[in-house]
């Protein structure tokens, strides 16, 4: 209960709530687009650098490789469950269900960043390689979703003007993957001495920048909810709340088998439970343009993101603590 309260009353969640409320109340407040994009690049650089420095401290053992494999496996498998749940319980057609499932197999890096802050506040330390796990979990879900969309259907002709490899470029070389993996490598190469020189920019202001970014996320989530909720039936809306719990439960089982420490188990649960709203929506517009963005973006950004931020993260940490004693 203390964990839940301290998360709910943390500045980052309160700023998110401020943005969400402002958007729902139709406030005209905005954060300039270029500034918001700059903030997201900053956060990904900061978390990548930090993870890289921590990775440089220890060797990449067989255990680390197995966690990487587990992350990729989760990203491949979770869309299967999400797709099945949506097809059984909601009125979404095959294309919309597959596109939505891709979002739930991929990850939200902002949820990951917020979770690391909650975990630090609880006095626990996460492993640097979890940043690499986050990057590895971005893309596989998209492949599964494309297979699900095409399964049993005739292969659609290529879209006019499309070029071979454009989807793979979008999936594997999108800004979040490039910045996250690049910063991880730079942190790993430059190590602690390199990090010390840039710490005043990337470490000290991190929490404040995260609050500013979450204010913008709240605005985006609120606007998405306001405009997109009409597209969702009740069962699809509820899916945005129960799917993260199913994904987190599966991730906790995998983390338990791999004997991951409490903080890393909680982070793997967060990664599995989170839904993408940066990389996957862009990829879906290229790969499945018939899918309705108002459905998958409203669910991932308007329903699952706030749920994870306010309730999910402390819940996953609590369960990880219970499992690991």
């Amino acid at each position, binding site marked *: 209960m203390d964990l839940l309260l301290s998360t709910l009353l943390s500045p980052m969640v309160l700023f998110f709530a401020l943005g969400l409320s402002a958007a729902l109340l139709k406030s005209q407040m905005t954060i300039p*687009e270029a500034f918001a994009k700059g903030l997201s690049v900053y956060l990904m650089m900061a978390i990548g650098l930090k993870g890289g420095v921590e990775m440089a401290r220890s060797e990449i053992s067989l255990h680390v490789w197995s966690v990487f494999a587990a992350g990729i496996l989760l990203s491949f498998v979770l869309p299967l469950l999400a797709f099945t749940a949506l097809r059984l319980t909601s009125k979404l057609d095959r294309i919309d269900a597959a596109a939505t499932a891709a979002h739930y197999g991929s990850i939200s890096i902002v949820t990951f960043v917020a979770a690391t802050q909650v975990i630090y506040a609880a006095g626990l330390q996460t492993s640097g390689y979890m940043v690499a796990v986050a990057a590895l979990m971005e893309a596989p879900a998209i492949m599964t979703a494309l297979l699900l969309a095409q399964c049993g259907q005739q292969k659609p002709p290529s*879209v006019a003007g*499309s*070029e071979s490899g454009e989807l793979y470029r979008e999936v594997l070389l999108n800004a979040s993957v490039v910045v996250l993996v690049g910063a991880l490598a730079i942190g790993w190469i430059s190590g602690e001495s390199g990090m010390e020189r840039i710490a005043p920019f990337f470490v000290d202001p991190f929490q404040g920048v995260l609050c500013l970014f979450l204010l913008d996320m709240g605005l985006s989530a609120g606007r998405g909810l306001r*405009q997109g909720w009409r597209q969702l039936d009740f069962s699809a809306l509820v899916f945005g709340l129960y799917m993260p719990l199913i994904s987190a439960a599966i991730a906790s089982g995998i983390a338990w088998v791999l004997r991951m420490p409490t903080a890393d188990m909680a982070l793997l649960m967060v990664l599995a439970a989170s839904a993408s709203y940066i990389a*996957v929506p862009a990829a879906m517009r290229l790969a499945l*343009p018939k899918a309705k963005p108002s459905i998958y*973006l409203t669910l991932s950004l308007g329903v699952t993101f706030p749920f994870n931020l306010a309730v999910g993260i402390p819940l996953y940490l609590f369960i990880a603590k219970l499992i690991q004693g």
Partner: protein
Amino acid sequence: MMHEKIRLELIIERMAMRRACRILETAGVPGYTVLPALSGFGRANHWQRDRDLSASQDMVVIISISDEAPIANVLLEMHALLDQHIGILNTSPVHVLRPDRF
């Protein structure tokens, strides 16, 4: 003094912009300009630039001025593109000062 040409105006989702530009280039139009679209309304939905971080719902406007033949070459492919992606296309006659540029 002025010379008649055809102006093609395509409003299309940003993610399909490169596909549309490839169609224009392949058809041999001499050039085009892409502008960001701020907001709009259609099919009972409001849309707005800058609504989500992925920018996957942003729209752009592509303008191309050319002779009739390249524009006619473009239309069939553009029709196929707009079967898949969100967008609208229109053409109209315009008058230009320097015909050699188009």
